[in-house]
């Protein structure tokens, strides 16, 4: 910060400025925040709900059988407990940096902080990829002509452009999309209710756990289900993005974040029950757009084609909403790292008109795009992978590790920085959450060890950026004092 030395001598002037400053602290720092508790609630809900239930319900049904709602219920419980750790940390450190900040505060270990930051970035990119593939499957229900890879690539490219222009910043658009998202799931629940009311439902399905498949015991089958469904629970960590701009975070965060998770969990359980009751589990298990099967049962008194199209559009909006948030987050992480000289300074470049980190945006889009292309090539070469599932697994592995570390950080930071009001998460629950996260993590890796290769590949991108900065970067590109003398008034 430059201080104009000459001004310090003018006492009269300086007094007034100090007076205004004191006034400013009272009025502006506290009152002019713009994210209310309600907006935060919808932000959480929109972010969590879109990421998975539309995309992954088939996989979960395949793993568990008719009782797959249990997987959703248990998964969301672990996630909500993790959410309470986030709520504690966010109210302690209300800043926009999330996991990296907490880990840095708790351990003060730079390599660990870097690893967590890069893992988060990688998880976010894999999530965008998975969602983009999911988008393409629902899109093919509306218009099946273009190839899926093209649709998902165009989708990612469009979101990058939208983000660059800044449309994503509209709070109201965010809320509207969340309403549409919830409406889609309400349709599924309504179909379930009508089906039950008509007396056609076989409730036995809800307790049926499929042990004939790959997982011999009911416990393993459910664990597999939790592992597959966990992608649907992620996204809440992105709420740390708006921590700084939340009004009264001490009250708003626990309520909105944990509340949002609980509501999302309830919706998931009811939606999975409705899906299990109305559609044979085998049909769900083999469908690319499984929730669409529920709508196609023709239980509502509308034409099935109309409902299928309407529902596809809703699913597309839901997926878009969640993908937008992940694509907003990636350049932000890169920007923060560039300012700290950990990755090349170009990622701190801000477009002069749009004030968007355009290099970071294009880079994120390119990495997600390559994931899609590589994934499609591997699939076509007979790699025998399901791209949505694979990328979701990669996201889940990375995020579970981060969640576990965040819970440990939360426990380690107890007793520190507690001079202001903050939310205190329940300690026994945190231990339970830690065990839960690690159990799901262990199973996910055990079940699909090759997902580690993908994780390593994505983390490698971070390493390459680090090395590029280390060997070729000039020190201080991100945080050097700018030369303002060339800024002329006229």
């Amino acid at each position: 910060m430059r201080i104009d030395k000459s001004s310090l001598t003018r006492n009269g002037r300086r007094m007034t400025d100090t007076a205004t400053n004191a006034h400013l602290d009272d009025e502006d720092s506290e009152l002019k925040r713009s994210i209310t508790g309600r907006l935060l609630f919808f932000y959480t809900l929109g972010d969590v709900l879109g990421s998975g239930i539309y995309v992954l319900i088939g996989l979960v049904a395949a793993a568990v059988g008719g009782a797959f709602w249990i997987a959703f219920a248990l998964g969301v419980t672990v996630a909500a407990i993790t959410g309470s750790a986030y709520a504690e940390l966010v109210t302690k450190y209300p800043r926009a940096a999330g996991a990296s900040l907490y880990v840095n505060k708790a351990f003060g270990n730079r390599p660990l902080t870097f690893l967590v930051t890069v893992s988060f970035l990688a998880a976010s990119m894999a999530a965008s990829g998975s969602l983009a593939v999911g988008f393409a499957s629902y899109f093919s229900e509306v218009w099946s002509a273009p190839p899926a890879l093209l649709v998902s690539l165009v989708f990612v490219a469009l979101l990058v452009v939208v983000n660059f222009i800044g449309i994503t910043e509209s709070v109201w658009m965010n809320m509207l999309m969340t309403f549409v998202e919830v409406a889609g799931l309400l349709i599924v629940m309504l179909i379930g209710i009508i089906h039950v009311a008509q007396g056609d439902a076989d409730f036995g399905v809800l307790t049926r756990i499929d042990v004939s498949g790959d997982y011999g015991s009911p416990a393993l089958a459910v664990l597999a289900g939790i592992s597959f469904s966990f992608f649907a629970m992620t996204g809440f960590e992105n709420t740390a993005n708006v921590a700084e701009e939340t009004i009264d975070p001490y009250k708003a965060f626990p309520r909105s974040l944990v509340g949002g998770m609980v509501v999302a969990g309830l919706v998931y359980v009811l939606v999975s029950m409705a899906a299990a009751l109305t559609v044979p589990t085998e049909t769900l298990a083999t469908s690319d757009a499984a929730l669409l099967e529920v709508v196609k049962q023709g239980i509502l008194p509308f034409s099935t084609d109309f409902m299928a199209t309407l529902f596809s559009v809703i699913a597309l909006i839901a997926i878009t909403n969640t993908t937008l948030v992940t694509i907003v987050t990636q350049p932000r992480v890169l920007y923060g790292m560039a300012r700290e000289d950990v990755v090349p300074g170009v990622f701190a470049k801000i477009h002069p008109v749009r004030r968007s980190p355009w290099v970071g945006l294009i880079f994120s889009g390119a990495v997600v795009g390559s994931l899609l292309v590589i994934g499609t090539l591997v699939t076509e070469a007979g790699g025998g992978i399901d791209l949505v599932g694979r990328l979701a697994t990669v996201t889940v592995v990375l995020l579970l590790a981060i969640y576990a570390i965040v819970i440990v950080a939360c426990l380690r930071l107890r007793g520190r920085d507690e001079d202001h009001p903050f939310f205190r998460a329940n300690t026994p629950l945190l231990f339970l959450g830690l065990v839960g996260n690690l159990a799901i993590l262990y199973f996910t890796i055990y079940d699909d060890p090759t997902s580690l290769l993908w994780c390593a590949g994505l983390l490698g991108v971070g390493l390459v950026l680090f090395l590029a900065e280390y060997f070729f970067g000039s020190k201080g590109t991100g945080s050097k004092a700018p030369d303002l003398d060339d800024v002329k008034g006229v």
Partner: protein
Amino acid sequence: MHVIVATDGSRQSLAAAKHLKSFADPTKVTAVSVVAVVRPLASVAFADDLSEGRLDGTFRDAAQSAVDTIAAVFEGWGPKVNKRIRSGSAANEIIKAAKQYDAGLVVVAAGGRGLSDSVLVGSTAQRVQHYAPCPVLVVRPAPRKRK
């Protein structure tokens, strides 16, 4: 007359502030409010190109240091200087501030010249021009000198 000087942390906004000071009569200006808007849902909620410093996860600090740098331009000029940080959509908040303080002039910087400015309509400067309750001074960047 109350003048609002908006900053998005860009060098161009500093140029705009200096431009105002270069011609305006300080005795006619009662107060200058330097306003920065943090955009919570944007990728980078506030980018400060005006001062040194790491981004320690707080965009509010970045906004604060940008506002401080701009406010320093008007130090000792005469009118009272207020510093304001708001949160939300940039154009909306600048217009709201103009109404709230009953401003007589809003000073904004027009980001750049060229394709991006004309193709991507709806930039902050444009929206402020259209909807502000008072005159708006849009400071455009000086054309690049050919070397």
